[in-house]
């Protein structure tokens, strides 16, 4: 589904090297220290950064030279996922209509997406009037509505308390299964990864030092993983 093929990128003295493959409907956690290159990796996949060498393939198509909006993916950022002057409904609707012109079917789909994340009836609320968890739900609803096969998550719940974070991960888990989404989530918490993901890779100093299915790694943790347990 997603394949990084000999990616090489140098930015301000930092070098990222990555070869990686993520199967359809797999959910990969990218773990690593701050400054290790996690966000840079996501930015290469999303198209915000162009690698110096190597290819990005999504669904077997080489998208390395594609502009950001044309890549078949959604992204959740650490913060700033919502526009403060728009209500929850409009914020979700932007996922399918950047000009906010929706047909009846569109309105129905937005309403449904909000209901799916448990925010039915909250459409008029602006982000300022929503709690942190509710804001995350709005962003997730938009991601679902877009129906892009690949989702990139850049520590989207880092600001939430542990209880809410668990709740969001459970919600995502359920919705990913329903849509068969392929997911790449950057995190610095192994327990978050455990709740949602099927695979794990460790990114340190711009290089992938560990990569594989999550369950066996947790059963018999390799030495590289011990600091994260």
């Amino acid at each position: 589904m997603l394949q990084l093929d000999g990616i090489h990128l140098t930015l301000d003295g930092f070098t990222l090297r990555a070869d990686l493959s993520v199967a359809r409907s797999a959910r990969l956690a990218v773990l690593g220290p701050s400054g290790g290159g996690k966000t840079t990796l996501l930015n290469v996949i999303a198209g915000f950064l162009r690698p110096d060498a190597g290819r990005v393939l999504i669904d077997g198509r080489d998208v390395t030279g594609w502009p950001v909006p044309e890549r078949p993916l959604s992204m959740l950022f650490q913060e700033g996922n919502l526009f403060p002057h728009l209500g929850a409904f409009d914020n979700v609707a932007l996922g399918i209509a950047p000009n906010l012109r929706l047909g009846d079917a569109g309105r129905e789909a937005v309403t449904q997406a909000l209901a799916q994340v448990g925010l039915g009836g909250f459409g008029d609320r602006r982000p300022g009037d929503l709690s942190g968890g509710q804001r995350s739900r709005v962003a997730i609803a938009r991601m679902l509505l877009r129906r892009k096969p690949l989702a990139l998550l850049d520590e989207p719940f880092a600001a939430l308390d542990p209880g809410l974070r668990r709740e969001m991960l459970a919600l995502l888990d359920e919705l990913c299964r329903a849509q068969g989404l392929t997911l790449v989530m950057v995190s610095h918490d192994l327990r978050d990864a455990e709740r949602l993901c099927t695979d794990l890779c460790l990114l340190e100093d711009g290089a992938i030092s560990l990569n594989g299915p999550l369950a066996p790694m947790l059963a018999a943790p390799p030495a590289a993983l011990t600091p994260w347990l």
Partner: protein
Amino acid sequence: MAERAQPLGAAHWAGAGVAALVLLAILGPLGAVLWRAEGLSALGPQDHGAIRFTVWQALLSALFSTALAIPVARALARRRFHGRTALIALMGAPFILPVIVAVLGLIAIFGRQGALNAGLAVFGLQGIEIYGLHGIVLAHVFFNLPLAVRLILQGWLAIPAERFRLAATLGFTSRDIARHMERPMLRQVLPGAFLVIFLICTTSFAVALILGGGPRSTTVELAIYQAFRYDFDLGRAALLGLVQVAICVVAGLLVLRVALPAGMGTGLDRPLERFDAQGGWQRAGDMAVIALSAAFLLLPLGAVFLRGVTGVAGLPGSVWQAAERSVVLSLATAALAVVLALPMALLIARGRAKGLLETIGALSIAVSPLVIGTGLFVILRPHVTPGSSALPVTGLVNALTALPFVLRALVPAVEEAEASHGRLARSLGMGGWARLRHVLLPRIRRPLGFGAGLAAAMAMGDLGVITLFATPQSGTLPLEMFRLMGSYRTDDAEAAALLLLGLSLALFWIFDRGGRVNAAT
């Protein structure tokens, strides 16, 4: 942070004393004006005309400055090109640019015999007129467009980078970005920018002095000057002064909050990461906007340089003497401004009566320099001749005018130095001079240099109070230049303009550099 256990040291008494002096130096003349204006006949029709004109030209100036600044700020926000940093730094320059020099440059381009009219004549079109409303608005736009660009650019850069990335993943077009991100930002930023520029333009004196003056283009400040200088009608000058105070009180306090640069465009040169607007037309449009605005700002200054450069060596002795007086005056003003600002900043940073002190420090913005000058004249008249007190009074008023700017630069740095090293210094038993010399001054050299440079350059280029008092023997360089323009000695005026421009920039540069060399932070 107020540390109440600390006894009030000598530095604190100095700060309180200075604050009291500043208050007296501003309120004293204001009181004198009030006292003199009492019981006088109401304002005449031409005075009402002046009030209307003041508001009207300020409205137009603010409207054009902000409207034109939007495309310029947008282009600067989303394009990277060579000279971008320099252009943004240039947007901070009007603060240290002598008004009269810029106006002379504008006359060279837009005046009756200017480059633009010459161009229009080639196509058989009628020329434009720079004196009167047009010219005043043009000059105000010249000075305030950069300010508006800076304010709006700040708004653009305050949009989180993540939001632009989000917009890209959602497939926003430039139009969608304008609708969901840029227009909401502009709705927040524009009213403030408009208001600040409107208020600055209601109090501008030198521009109106040079380009206005007829019955249909007299501002309130200009009317004060005329009442004082031509009719010697102190009562009417005082009454108009009160009107100006009313305008300024509203104006100044708001201006201080939004308008002052913390540095010369520092931090504004980060380009936005944009994933839209990559089309050829949009790119070309942005570059055209940038080229036009750069030309608008640079051509008048270039004209001053080209026309003045041959004449500098042949300037008459009177101009050189005025230049000498101006340099001395400007150095004295910078020194006085720093001497006033430093103790006040120390006291403000300690959190003692912070609100009161900050209000006193900002007070001079709310009172027109011309009104303070008039008041000082009323006070001093029985004791000294106006001519002999022209330079000291000008220096004092200029230092008071510069005080809010210097404070604005100093206070955050002093607060930071205190917060980071104050306790350490106290635990080492360092007090008074030792602390000031070894802990504080090394850490605030940069803003001190910047503030002193700003004060020096503002004093160098000032054409305000000096016009009230000066005799031919006590004129400053801007005043001498104004006289040369008035007697149509254009060549000499242009050479003097170049000299004035050079001196202003040099003074600012020397102080600002001096603060940076070997600075601790």
